[in-house]
């Protein structure tokens, strides 16, 4: 997949030995990479530190060591962390929308969370509904929606503040193959609007969306580069397995 760099903008993510430890051996121990493209995949087995890295990228947590910048903003600095939180959209892992509320109500809530000014909120909601093809479903309670539609609601909420980066944590794990491919196609189309950071245990998802990839194992970066580099002339999944095997040795 061709890279789509924006040379005048700062890199999407720059991590220099960034760490966020839960204790001595858990959490993110050493993330060291630079991603300059429009779509970054984060791969790794369970407990490899993916969600912790995403917590740093979204400003949910502060690094306990090293340095990190997201679109040039340092989440360790309070003022820049506040700014970062305004320009980020986020789909947390295994997130579900309360079934009784309507799509519009939930987007209004997330708009309030993100600090979207009240005057701009209706237009922002309409825009995110349009991008995710949910305009007709605005007043439907979430419990009446299919799994695929609910996943689109999660994507819509991540767009409600017109972010410059959307961070998604394992968004396709619960979807069937057809729903997954449609969702990934939608993410690809999003790359024109904003950068995408996609953490997932599914290599195919990264292959479909991302041009750059970071592989984490036991809290450390074991690979960073383009998807083509990771594949190494073979299938991306094979390349991923090779990198993990090398890391375990």
């Amino acid at each position: 997949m061709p890279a789509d760099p924006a040379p005048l903008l700062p890199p999407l993510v720059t991590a220099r030995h960034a760490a966020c430890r839960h204790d001595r051996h858990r959490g993110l121990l050493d993330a060291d990479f630079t991603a300059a493209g429009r779509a970054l995949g984060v791969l790794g087995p369970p407990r490899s530190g993916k969600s912790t890295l995403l917590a740093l990228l979204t400003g949910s947590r502060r690094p306990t060591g090293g340095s990190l910048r997201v679109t040039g903003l340092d989440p360790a600095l309070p003022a820049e962390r506040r700014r970062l939180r305004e320009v980020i959209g986020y789909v947390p892992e295994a997130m579900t929308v309360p079934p009784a509320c309507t799509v519009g109500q939930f987007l209004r809530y997330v708009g309030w969370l993100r600090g979207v000014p009240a005057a701009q909120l209706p237009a922002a909601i309409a825009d995110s509904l349009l991008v995710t093809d949910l305009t007709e479903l605005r007043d439907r309670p979430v419990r009446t929606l299919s799994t695929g539609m609910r996943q689109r609601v999660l994507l819509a909420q991540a767009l409600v503040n017109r972010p410059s980066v959307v961070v998604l944590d394992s968004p396709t794990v619960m979807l069937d193959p057809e729903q997954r491919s449609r969702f990934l196609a939608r993410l690809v189309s999003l790359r024109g609007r904003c950068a995408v950071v996609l953490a997932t245990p599914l290599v195919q998802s990264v292959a479909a969306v991302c041009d750059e990839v970071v592989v984490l194992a036991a809290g450390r970066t074991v690979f960073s580069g383009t998807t083509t580099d990771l594949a190494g002339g073979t299938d991306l999944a094979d390349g991923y397995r090779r990198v993990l095997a090398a890391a375990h040795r």
Partner: protein
Amino acid sequence: MPPPVRLVLAEMTAGAGLVLGMLLLAVAVAGGLAMVPPEAGPSWSNPFNLALTGLMVVGPLCAGGVAWLVRDYRVRGIGALAASTNRGTAGGALPRLAAACAWAGLAYLVLLGLFTARTAHRGAPAGAPLLLALLAAGFLAACAALGWATGTLSEARAAGPLLAGALFTLVRVGASGDGWARPLVPVNPDLVYRPFLQPHVRLVWIQVVVLAAITALGLSVLLGRGRRRRLTGLAGAVVLAAAVFALSRTDPAPTEIRGAPAHPVCAGDPVPVCLRPENAELLPGSERALAAASAALAPYLAVPVRFSEPGIERRVASGPGIYVPPAGPGDPLAFQAAALAAILPPPCPPPSRHGPAAMSYGDLMTWAEARVNGRAGVPPYALGRVAPVLGMDLDRQRSWVRRHLATSCAG
């Protein structure tokens, strides 16, 4: 409509927020109709106290409901989403918390409305009864904070129901307990306010501070792991310790006598008597009963020359000349009993539980009734004890009265 209000309304009218609200309202309506207001005369303190008593169920339910809502918020990943915003995890839960508190507040207003409609009162409530509303708000805030902390600390489904059950048990057992720790529980289910009584202002303020400290301790759980959390927790603990110490140094009586009204209603012929304005309809009956009792007993003992309700001339609940009128104007015997108690008050308050002393005071009251009404009104079992006295001459009856007044003080 401002966006935060719309968010709170959305939380109140859908899903778990709506279920919690309906439950709280149902409990409030059922409790408000099931509890019978006391017939103690006009008082604003009674409806406020009854509504506060109703919170014994509403408060724990609110705590359990908040714990459930906050748990749901975290389990659904909405807390993680909010953590990536400038509102933060705690701020993102505010609409849910506000919805639960709004429903609990509405339930309190329903209780208060039901009791106010069924309790006699006059004019606008004074400051002391309104303090009970502040106490109610403090109680609900403490319950909500404990619920929030529990929902934050535990993802177990049972956490909310267990918290509700534990809080209810704690408050119920505490409310029926005794000793210096009793005032830690802000609910008094068995308390009845006569018109001359009001909540013990100092005690209620300390209770409000205790609840504020508990709220601060609950909220400290939400403030992450940093200095703010430690400071809030420490401040809550220090204030709680200080308030508990102050409680241990405060008279635990939940009531005190109200101050003098600006314009008491008085009658002066032949016996001067002053009542609170809300008891104006009791003045004629009181005057008649006091005149009759004074005239009948004056030859035998020193009868007060004027009578007034507690707090009008002296801030004491009983004593010579302190007249506590009956709750309503319908029963002449109740006026007579009140008049006799004002002329022959138990001389050693609180009323002695010592058997011979209580019996002696009972004999004295029976004798007084017989002096006012004649022997016809005295029950046969009591008449046997005082009939010989009634037949004595004036001097011997006087000395009998003096002796019995002294004995009834012996306990």
